């Protein structure tokens, strides 16, 4: 028998698989499968989302036939299966559940498009279907390489290299950029972002990104929303390959749900990052079970993560989380010390033009919403908005230099006594200003110190 473990690429959901079953009366049935997981060398698991004909049949007659396609070669395989059991909790169920929930939330289908169980089948035989090969045997036909297949290189050497980059980062600010830069250089992940816990409960904010046209600094994701929100909610990594196909499957369900009156509103949330990612990988950044944030890696091609890579990713997530938390604590402990100059990063926004310097900038602070608009457009909210409003007002009265310590002591900012995340809020604010309002600049002048620089006249307007 062909070893099941040699077909793990077939289980990534890139090419649809289908299953044939048969009722006890002898009526066959065929259906496309949404989600298949490799369980071990003798078992696979299929998602059970609806009580459909396939489910009814296997409860009557456990025999099934599964056709899998290898995504690199389109070679088809026939697996004869025997239904064993349905799991409704445990690691297998949870892993499948998280992926399906992430897709469901993107499609506005949370609670409708959900996993009811993971149906586990024993694999009785695996056979290559000789006549069912997609790629021609003739020479000269170019088959696109599987990007990053063999080679999502989670080797010790690669991890050591990443570790060295992290150790060399002098500040939290540099550390965040260094992590994303290293992920691209060492592992080939071109699109990545880090979201840290927000000052609002159950929300994350994007604090660093790489590879995107719009940096998206300050974008928010609620717990449970999409892959990032599901990672935050469950504290577990999630990877989704063949995302386009799975989204189409979910949209088909959404359409049917709307027609049935089960999903009357369009509750789709916009995907952060790439408009049409083909793969997403979310890694929780945890320190002793406390969520610091989420690292999200996206691809416009299909990644082929192997099962064992999950372990590396969880270890990597823990390591990055500790590095980020250490940087936060160090910056707080070493306030008022001079810091080395920040290396220039290519993603920085260009300096403002002379024209923008000349026009006055209206900054409106909405007290009840804790939200700031710049030239009538949303800029920032929450704690970063309150900080910006405070330092702009003080700057208008002649203060240009600020310290984190002074901000921390300001009761008006209502910082929590413990874990105020002030440093990360300031980084978010500075980066958000660079992206959306370059006439206001926050320039770090020492550890725990910064200077406010204005490129034009600013009108401060307070709204209720």
């Amino acid at each position: 028998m062909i070893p099941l473990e040699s077909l793990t690429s077939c289980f990534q959901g890139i090419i649809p698989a289908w299953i044939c079953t048969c009722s006890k009366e002898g009526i066959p049935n065929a259906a496309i499968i949404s989600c298949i997981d490799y369980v071990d060398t003798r078992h696979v698991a299929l998602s059970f989302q609806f009580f459909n004909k396939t489910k009814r049949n296997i409860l009557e007659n456990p025999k099934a036939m599964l056709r899998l396609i290898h995504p690199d070669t389109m070679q088809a395989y026939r697996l004869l299966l025997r239904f064993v059991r349905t799991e409704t909790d445990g690691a297998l169920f949870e892993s499948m559940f998280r992926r399906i929930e992430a897709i469901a939330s993107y499609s506005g289908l949370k609670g409708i498009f959900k996993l009811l169980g993971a149906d586990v089948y024993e694999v009785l035989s695996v056979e290559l279907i000789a006549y069912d090969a997609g790629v021609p045997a003739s020479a000269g036909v170019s088959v696109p390489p599987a990007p990053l297949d063999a080679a999502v290189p989670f080797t010790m050497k690669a991890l050591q290299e990443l570790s060295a980059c992290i150790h060399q980062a002098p500040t939290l600010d540099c550390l965040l950029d260094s992590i994303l830069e290293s992920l691209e250089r060492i592992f080939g992940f071109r699109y990545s972002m880090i979201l840290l816990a927000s000052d609002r409960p159950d929300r994350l904010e994007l604090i660093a990104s790489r590879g995107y046209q719009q940096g998206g600094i300050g974008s928010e994701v609620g717990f449970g929303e999409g892959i990032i929100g599901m990672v935050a909610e469950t504290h577990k990594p999630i990877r989704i390959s063949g995302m386009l196909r799975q989204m189409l499957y979910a949209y088909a369900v959404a359409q049917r749900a709307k027609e049935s009156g089960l999903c009357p509103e369009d509750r789709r949330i916009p995907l952060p990052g790439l408009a049409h990612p083909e793969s997403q990988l979310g890694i929780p950044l945890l320190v002793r079970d406390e969520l610091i944030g989420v690292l999200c890696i996206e691809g416009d091609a299909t990644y082929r993560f192997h099962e064992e890579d999950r372990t590396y990713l969880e270890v990597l997530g823990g390591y990055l989380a500790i590095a980020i938390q250490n940087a936060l604590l160090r910056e707080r402990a070493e306030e008022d010390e001079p810091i080395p100059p920040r290396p220039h990063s290519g993603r920085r926004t260009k300096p403002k033009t002379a024209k923008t310097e000349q026009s006055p900038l209206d900054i409106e602070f909405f007290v009840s919403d804790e939200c700031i608009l710049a030239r009538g457009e949303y800029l920032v909210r929450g704690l970063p908005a309150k900080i910006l409003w405070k330092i702009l007002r003080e700057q208008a009265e002649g203060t240009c230099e600020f310290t984190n310590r002074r901000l921390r002591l300001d009761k008006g900012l209502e910082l929590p006594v413990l874990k105020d995340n002030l440093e990360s809020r300031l980084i978010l604010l500075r980066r958000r200003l660079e992206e959306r309002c370059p006439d206001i600049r926050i320039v770090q002048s020492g550890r725990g110190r910064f200077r406010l620089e204005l490129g034009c006249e600013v009108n401060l307007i307070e709204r209720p």
Partner: protein
Amino acid sequence: MIPDELSVFLESGLSIVVATRDGELQPNGAVAWALSVHDDRAHVSVFLHPDAAKEMLENLGSYPQIALDLDLPTSHRACQLKGLFVSARKARAPERAEVERQLEAFSADLAAIGIPRALTAGWSSWPCTVLKVRVTDLFEQTPGPGAGDRLP
């Protein structure tokens, strides 16, 4: 029996799966390249690779129950035809263009979901064996609520 609109969909170039079973109720399945609805709207012809048809015929000779799952990958609109096997024959030369048209449409749909044409170029769509099926039931198969409902 097969309505006009559904007939157009069935012949539009879809993922087609043929399912049969043996005397031990072990199901087996194979892909088909094309389907055509007969003028009587009660029968269809399914075009398969001869080796795939041979496997299906091993079951159909004794157990004529057959299921056909048809799915459009980009929308996942799908339906299931249940029926009884009637006969098998070699596909005729004038039918080749229609088989290739449907397969081309299906390949284009797969390309739209990121499966490159280079990966489907090796499909051996000719010669074909044709299975004639008398359709007894039509079912909605689009995933979601209502999947499995009988079509009017």
